[in-house]
């Protein structure tokens, strides 16, 4: 595994664990998330408080800072979008 792919799988695992914690998905449902899985608007647990909690936990667990104006609705549309955003942030 190259350094980049190992980093990517680390971010992926962190993100799945985080969503499992915040949304109470359980390991199986978190593991079953695909790039196209809908988040905000699709998972009933994913309300504005959950969005806020996810953002703060992403900062803590991925060691990143997320600026207000970086966040738009698209990031939380699908798991793939959230993962792509996270990968961009950790490699910035």
């Amino acid at each position, binding site marked *: 595994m190259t350094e980049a792919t190992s980093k990517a799988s680390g971010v992926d695992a962190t993100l799945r664990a985080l969503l499992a*914690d*915040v*949304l*109470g998905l359980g390991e199986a449902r978190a593991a079953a998330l695909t790039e196209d899985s809908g988040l905000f608007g699709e998972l009933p*647990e*994913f*309300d*504005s*408080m*959950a*969005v*806020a*909690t996810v*953002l*703060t*936990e992403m900062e*803590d667990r991925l060691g990143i800072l997320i600026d*207000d*104006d970086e966040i738009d609705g698209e990031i939380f549309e699908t798991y793939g979008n959230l993962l792509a955003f996270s990968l961009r942030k950790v490699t910035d």
Partner: protein
Amino acid sequence: MWEMRVLTQTAEHILRIAPAGIPRATVLIVPPLFEEANRTRRTLVLAMRALAAEGFAAVLPDLPGHNESLVPLVEVDLARWQDALAEVISGIDGPTIIASFRGGALIDHKAKAAAWWRLAPVGGASLLRTLMRARVSADREAGVASSLEALQDEAKSGPLLLAGNHLSSAMVAQLGTSEAQGVEPLRSVGLGADGIAGTPLWLRAEPGEDAAMAEAIAADISAWSKTCGVS
């Protein structure tokens, strides 16, 4: 076998779960703050039952402005919570161990205890950021322009409504800079193999419970009490 009652001699309700007879010591539970308190309450009370089964009295006071309190949250700040806990502990007979959770660690140092125990302490800035983000997210969903910066400014001149919590300027300012203070003797644990096995229920969008985690919390506090020579 347990006595369970709501004490009302102070201004706030205190849930007390105790074994029959004289307890080994009293464990004062300082709950997480704001919404995190609701998400964890059930598991905290399960931990209190487990502590009572080990011979401890466990007390969980309502913080002014939280739970059944009649005090409006907007009149409260961290300093008032610290004083309220100091008052609760001064009314307890025998040795007391303070067990605080998450943001509870920000307000547990003014009370005099024989030992302290903290689970997953968190800085006030992180709690505040999440609350503000929830407000920004809800505002934007409703088509209202909103930002963390604008909310910070607004907080300087008056109270803010954040995710259902009316917070005073003083509360917002104190949260922004508050960190858990040094106390002794202290055992500070996180979740995981080296700490308490369990899930961060305080993050959960919908309240859950974890009986195994409650047992683990009680066992860890009991062991720490022995280590400190409390009982």
